[in-house]
């Protein structure tokens, strides 16, 4: 039997696709790198099927590239061909446990689907900035996309999970690790272990190179009973830093983010043709948005003490700015919590594609005080490569009470314009090099250009990763060619 016949034996004829035209949707996303075809796409319905595919891949030394919801913001690049393991049919919500505030979900479940289900229970998962409606919740969290909620205590959102090791064994982690789970006194609320290694950490940011998650317990939280949202305008990001530190150190608000006027206009413009330019011109160069939330008991009283503290900080730390309950040019801030706590609407063009049709993100972590240096440097590099520095979108996400910052530059481009794509590709590559010199920490090195540049600078870490990968994936079947493997 050839590989296809063996795969058909595992999942049936209909769930093995090898027609190139039909495989394109499984890999295509926005990427400056050229697409590569897998040998086939195999859709699995559960962990047992997925494990059988991985074991077969080990026998035949065939790459396996896991794909969760089937939507890929950045394209799937099967660098060495192989099998795309499609889990988009695995959408089960096994259990909504309101008492312990968690939900057990499969990797094909999307933000849109989970959000609508949880709304009925008045619960939510704290989300990053506009996950796509059809992107996988589990993948988003595994990839450590930063939450808008900056509070440390609401982090570590993935609890115990089920996974498949690169050698094909099904394994459960944390307090779900009992063979007979969910029977027994462990209900999967603790993520770590079992034992002295932590599969969760190894899976995080691994882009499918260290194993496959087949379900995970994920933290859910109560939807706040009340909210009050403020927008604080600033001329420069530099002026915003002390405000962010002061607000975060006082633990004021839940969601907090900083956007330049280009990105905020892309998000809030009702219509790009008629409204975008007006809005961009009206918005302040930088907006710091913060949502104060009121929980179940006396919600308004909680908001009141936080608002009072916010005004004291404004008077003492950033008297030159204002604390507004409107977004200039847009209107009241009261609609923002609903907008920011939802995935981007499925029917609308994704916010990063609204301006030119596509976007290349440059993302990394740093400390708040270094952000202005990066802004200046990346804008300079963009300009040197013929990319208008004022056409870069910038989004800064304070993380864990602003003890670090997620920095995101959005290079917008027309995917049909080859010259513009080339300019952006050059600017992007040189920006990575410049950022690395300034000690940017690339926790999510997407694509070959980024991963090659980043791993080259981390020789001992990279050596350690390779040794770990060899120990756990001796045949290097899990997404080879991605990262440094």
């Amino acid at each position, binding site marked *: 039997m050839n590989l296809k016949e063996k795969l058909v034996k595992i999942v049936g004829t209909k769930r093995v696709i090898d027609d190139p035209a039909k495989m394109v949707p499984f890999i295509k996303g926005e990427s400056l790198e050229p697409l590569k075809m897998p040998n086939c796409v195999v859709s699995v319905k559960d962990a047992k099927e997925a494990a059988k595919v991985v074991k077969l891949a080990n026998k035949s030394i065939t790459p396996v590239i896991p794909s969760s919801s089937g939507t890929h913001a950045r394209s799937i690049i099967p660098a060495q061909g192989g099998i795309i393991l499609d889990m988009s049919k695995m959408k089960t919500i096994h259990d909504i446990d309101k008492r312990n505030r968690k939900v057990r979900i499969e990797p094909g479940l999307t933000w849109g689907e989970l959000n609508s289900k949880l709304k009925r229970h008045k619960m939510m998962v704290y989300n990053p900035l506009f996950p796509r409606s059809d992107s996988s919740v589990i993948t988003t969290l595994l990839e450590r996309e930063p939450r808008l909620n900056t509070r440390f205590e609401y982090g570590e959102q993935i609890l115990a999970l089920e996974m498949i090791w690169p050698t094909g064994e099904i394994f459960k982690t944390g307090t779900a690790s009992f063979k007979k789970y969910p029977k027994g006194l462990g209900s999967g609320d603790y993520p770590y272990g079992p034992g002295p290694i932590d599969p969760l950490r190894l899976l*995080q940011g691994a882009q499918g190179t260290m194993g496959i998650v087949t379900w995970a317990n994920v933290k859910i939280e*109560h939807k706040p009973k009340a909210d009050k949202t403020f927008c604080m305008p600033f001329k420069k990001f530099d002026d915003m830093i002390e405000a962010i530190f002061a607000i975060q150190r006082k633990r004021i608000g839940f969601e907090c983010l900083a956007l330049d006027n280009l990105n905020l206009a892309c998000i809030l413009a009702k219509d790009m043709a008629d409204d975008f330019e007006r809005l961009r011109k009206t918005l302040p160069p930088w907006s710091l948005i913060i949502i104060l939330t009121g929980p179940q*008991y006396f919600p308004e009283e909680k908001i009141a003490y936080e608002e009072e503290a916010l005004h004291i900080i404004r008077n003492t730390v950033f008297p030159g700015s204002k604390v507004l309950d409107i977004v200039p040019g847009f209107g009241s801030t009261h609609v923002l919590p609903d907008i920011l706590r939802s995935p981007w609407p499925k029917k609308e063009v994704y916010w990063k594609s609204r301006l030119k049709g596509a976007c290349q993100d440059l993302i990394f972590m740093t400390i708040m005080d270094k952000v202005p240096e990066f802004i200046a440097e990346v804008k300079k590099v963009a300009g040197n490569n013929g990319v208008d520095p004022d056409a870069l979108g910038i989004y800064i996400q304070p993380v864990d009470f602003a003890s670090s910052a997620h920095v995101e530059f959005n290079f917008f481009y027309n995917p049909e314009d080859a010259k513009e794509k080339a300019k952006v590709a050059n600017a992007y590559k040189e920006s990575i090099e410049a950022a690395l010199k300034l000690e940017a920490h690339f926790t999510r*090195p997407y694509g070959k250009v980024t991963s090659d540049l980043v791993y080259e600078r981390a020789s001992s870490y990279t050596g350690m990763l390779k040794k770990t990968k060899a120990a756990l994936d001796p045949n290097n079947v899990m997404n080879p060619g991605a990262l440094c493997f």
Partner: protein
Amino acid sequence: MISEEIYKELESIVGEKWISNEPEMLQGYTNIDRGWDSAEARMLGQNPAVVVLPANTEEVSEVIKVASRNNIGYTPVSTYFTPSAGATSDDCLQVDLKRLTTLEVDARNQNATVGSGIVYAQLQAEALKHGLYTAVPGGGSQVGVIPNHLCWGFSPLTYRVGMANRRILGLEWILPDGEIVRLGSLATGSNPFMGEGIGPDLRGLIRGSIGWNGSLGIVTKMTTKLLPIHNQKFNPLRIMKYSFLHFPEHRQRWYNFTCPSKSAMVEFMLDVAHAEIGAAMTRVPIAWRYLAKSTSKEDYWDKWAQDPDQKRKEVTETYILRFLLIGYTSEKQLEYEEKVLMKIAAKHKAEHRRTRQVDGSWMQSGDSVTMWWLTGAFMTVTGLIDALDNCIKLGEEFAKLKAQYTPPLMEDYGDEGWYQMNDMGHSGYLEFLNDWDPLDSKQNLEKKDIYFQVAGPQLLVDVGVHHFFAQIVSPLSIDNPEFGPYYGDFARKIKDAFDPNYLSNPPGFLDSLDEVIDGYPALKKAKAKICK
């Protein structure tokens, strides 16, 4: 045997003053009868062959390279809290890390970098000066910050500050062959502000549910996240064992309640977590109250041993909860949270009790020494972090098992363990505490060992719970197939890859307890009888 030649080579790295093989000195590092009574220490404990005290990461690396080249087993130690931090193999090189005393607080980015010789009392004292804090673990403020982050790291404060492994940022790690690797943001930079890896997070190799207890190299420097708190002073009062900190009461307060029933107590805790208030909450075992009120061991026993029937009633029918509220943002936050707490208390008919606004254990100092005070030996047989309801049920199961082993375990009148809320109420926590007399008869110590190494772990397998101390005190052969499954086999792949000659703290906890049971007839027999 560590040869004279190797000794000289080690001496050339650390200097003459910082190495010894003098018997008197080695006796000071003994793992035999040194105060922690356990089968592991009794069966495997030894004196080391040589002790070295390197001064920094580079020296540690050089020392380990020498050991690795010459196939010498070595055991790292910082503050000596467990038997694993002592020699458990022949010709062991003891690497004492107490000279690594870096302590730098980066207040702006809310972290601190510590060396292996730094203990929590030092870290917390520095952090509080900057309006920041960490969680001093149940093990006490005298324990090392790095090993505690790597091995467990739990306290009532983890309700809001999370398990210690979540707070690990950049670090320097000497691999078992002596190579230095830097994790997190130190992989490509000089600022240790972040722990996440470039892609996969290699912190997953050094700390899972628990850590390796020195069996996968040595972390010499670690940056740990600190969390913001108010900037008010905690005034120290009294000295020695009577010392405590007085809370700034307008920003931080205890609240004690007596609940009418166990179910009321559980619902009270869950409601507070759902209300998203509080800095910590825990049940107060009755024995702790006697301990707190006693002036000596004798005084404790005078009180605790009286009227057993009344004690049993008191222990099993009294439900005391202790909450800590902190006004992180302002005084008004404390007022708000107090109002919410009182409303929830009224709903559950919990009675508010008076309490002194002082602390001797949670914020900075640690009172864990008193846990040994009662009988001279103490050990937790299990700890479970999971749904609070599961913690309660596991406590009930262990109380039944413990009754079969009491005596020699200390009579605690049916106490069902210490439990509390964790991770903003996403999980609860149970720790089941045990005391015994380490000078008891051989027969009684065997019975106690069977409880710890066989019967307790088998109970965990029976009820489907696998957690922390069980992984350290019970042999892998009991629970390895049941959890994961075969969790130990995957850990061993990592051990084999990075320490193929098993030199880092031999035999290492993957194997040590199986070795103990194989060589201990009473345990071997009990295992054959009890384990399925």
